[in-house]
């Protein structure tokens, strides 16, 4: 029997705003009267390292999504999409920002950053759909590159059982008022990108 209505894994690099997205989703779920669980990465793992965040809508169990069970993988960075691809369900969808953040192992020439197709091809093999998008460029269009995470949230909005109105209401709670307009625009552009 299914143990969660919708399991989301959000990944990226420390500082990209992974926690903000899951906070918006969690708040929106609460507003919708659904039980919700989440698990975050704090501490050591945040210093430029890989970050993974689990969010489970309509779930009363543990806060972590099981390997092979994520309905959506939301990746704010392409290499991180592949790093956490094992969480995806065969029926799942991967939404991937295609702008890389080079790890220090690459900038110092110790490792190579793979070509985009090397990342996307294996992803396509393990889930139902892969949606690549340059969320970083779209965020610039919206007025601030910082809103890249909210572009991805907009893209995610059609894939989760929460209404757009409630998501936007939750967004307004967590974004400082002076950045709200740019973030609402980022959300709309992200949503339009995948429609």
């Amino acid at each position, binding site marked *: *029997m299914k*143990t969660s209505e919708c399991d989301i894994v959000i990944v990226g*690099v*420390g500082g990209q705003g992974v926690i903000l997205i*899951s*906070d918006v989703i*969690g*708040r929106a*779920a*609460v507003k919708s009267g*659904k*039980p*919700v*669980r*989440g*698990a*975050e*990465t*704090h*501490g*050591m*793992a*945040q*210093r*430029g*390292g*890989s970050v993974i965040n689990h969010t489970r809508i309509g779930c009363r*169990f*543990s*806060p*972590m999504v*099981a*390997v*092979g069970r994520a309905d959506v993988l939301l990746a704010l960075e392409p*290499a*991180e999409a*592949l*790093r956490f*691809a*094992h969480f995806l369900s065969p029926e799942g969808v991967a939404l991937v920002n295609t702008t890389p953040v*080079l*790890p*220090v*192992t*690459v*900038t*110092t*020439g*110790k*490792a*190579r*950053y*793979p070509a985009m197709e*090397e*990342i996307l*091809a*294996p992803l396509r093999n*393990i889930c139902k759909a892969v949606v690549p998008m340059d969320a970083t460029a779209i965020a610039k269009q919206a007025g601030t590159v910082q809103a890249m995470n909210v572009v991805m949230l907009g893209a995610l909005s059609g894939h989760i059982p929460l209404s757009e109105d409630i998501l936007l209401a939750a967004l307004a709670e967590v974004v400082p008022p002076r950045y709200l307009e740019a973030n609402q625009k980022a959300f709309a552009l992200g949503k339009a990108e995948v429609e």
Partner: protein
Amino acid sequence: MREYLLGNVAIAKGFMEAGIGLAAGYPGTPSSEIIETLADLRGDLPLHVEWSVNEKVALEVAAGASWTDVRAAATMKHVGLNVAADPFMTLAYLGIGAGLVVVCADDPFCHSSQNEQDSRRYSEFASVPCLDPADPKEAKDMAVYGFELSEKFNIPVMLRPTTRVSHARADVEPGVARPCGGRRQFTKSPGQRVALPVHARPLHTELTKKRSAIEEELQSAPWNRLELKGESGIIAAGISGLYAEEAIQDLDLEDMSLLRIGTYPVPSRMISQLLEHVSRVMVVEELEPVVEEQVERLARKVNPAVEILGKDGSIPREGELDFLTVRNAVARLLGRSEKPALRVAAAEKILPPRPPALCPGCSHRATYYAMRKAFGKKAVYPSDIGCYTMAVGMGTVDTCLCMGSGITLASGIRFGGETEGICCSLGDSTFLHGGMTGLLNAAYNKARITVTILDNSTTAMTGHQPHPGTGVTATGESTVQVSLEALAKALGAGLVKTVDPYDLDKAIEGFQKAKEFPGLSVVIARQPCVIKARRSGAGRKSFAVGEDCAGCRVCVDFGCPAIEFEGEKARINALCTGCGVCAKICPSAVIQEVRK
């Protein structure tokens, strides 16, 4: 109205509902947000919130408040309880005034820790009851109940969330904050407050009696839940209860008996009832077989024939559990098929590692560069616990044991006969937490070592908490700003040099002087944490690599994430904070400041 609360925030809200009068803690992942939240929530309530100098101090401060008849809590991570173990063990004898809750946040899998010790062992060791929440809601409810239990039995109570509770979020219904009550007066009672042998002996006898009474009380605690069904059963503790319930639903096991446990001492009657009912049982708990040992003890009495699985190989004793691990263990028990943990071959083959690293422009990198320039490759570099431990690749982190151990290990390495240079390092907060006694000891026993205090004027690793060197308290009030220089001198250092790590040549010179000093020397490398500097809006310069870059890679090997190597030349990317250290180490002097 329900809120989406972080476990640690839920605990803080629970404390507010319980009418707490004092909270003291030392930062440590995954416990830090409890004190931070209380500092935010206190408003005009008569609540003292402090970052203490270390966990031992925090627990003693909390005990003092409890003895003054206000509800008090101390918060720490699991290894912090080692530091606080001395008061913890004896407080169980002496008892409390108003309720006293010790939050000890465990970190199975060492997400952000040097070990994954199981604090439930401490509860058993000290005869202190322990509450083991499965999720943020339970954590909040237990935070309230902890005070009631503590007061009913005159004993401190341990609340033990794990990373997946403290840093989990869930929809939780918060209650109403209550102002702290209590007489706020210390009552003299030497028999309960002075641990002389003549008092301790009868108190130990009393503690043993309390243990049985507490066990009886917890038999019916709401976090211990028994569902008797078929002949196979699961006993699951803390968050493992949720993994077990999810496994039962996932496998559609309508016939599985389940006992969920959330307290220690464990509910022996429920365990016995289950053992009498089933023919085999699997004990699911993270880390140590704390519950399993009790199950085995009880099975000898009530059903010696029952088959007990757990740390026999069914459930790992190391790391954290998750749904899939538990699901597969249950499936094996029933002869059902396991779900293999999916692996993506490409990910393992082509992905560059992304380990956590020192930030772009972090002054620790410059300090270590200068240190190594002066002390050389052969010197020994004991280090400590903090962001700077991540500099292990720079060759200046040879040890990391526990808070403050850099200095004492360095002393021991010297007295053990090492003749090379010895330069240890530790952060400002770590020095104040556990380094001062080691420095005093090094001075007293004449250790010829150099101690480097990496002073970024904050507790960076755990989220930038203030400490006595910052001049600010947990609640943002200004206070005395303790001078590290004066402290180091007072503790007996023969030479104390303060350097700015961004001023690289002078920093190297400072380390050189310390190296040559025939005694105990201290180098204080002072530069604010780059993250804090950025948040406070400090203006920074911009740097760029010129056309004539020889591609020597000296700056690249420095390891700053702001420097990339592209097409045989170095390049400075947008992460640059403008510290300018790379410009100083470039042999061809082609990295230069540019106008923004």
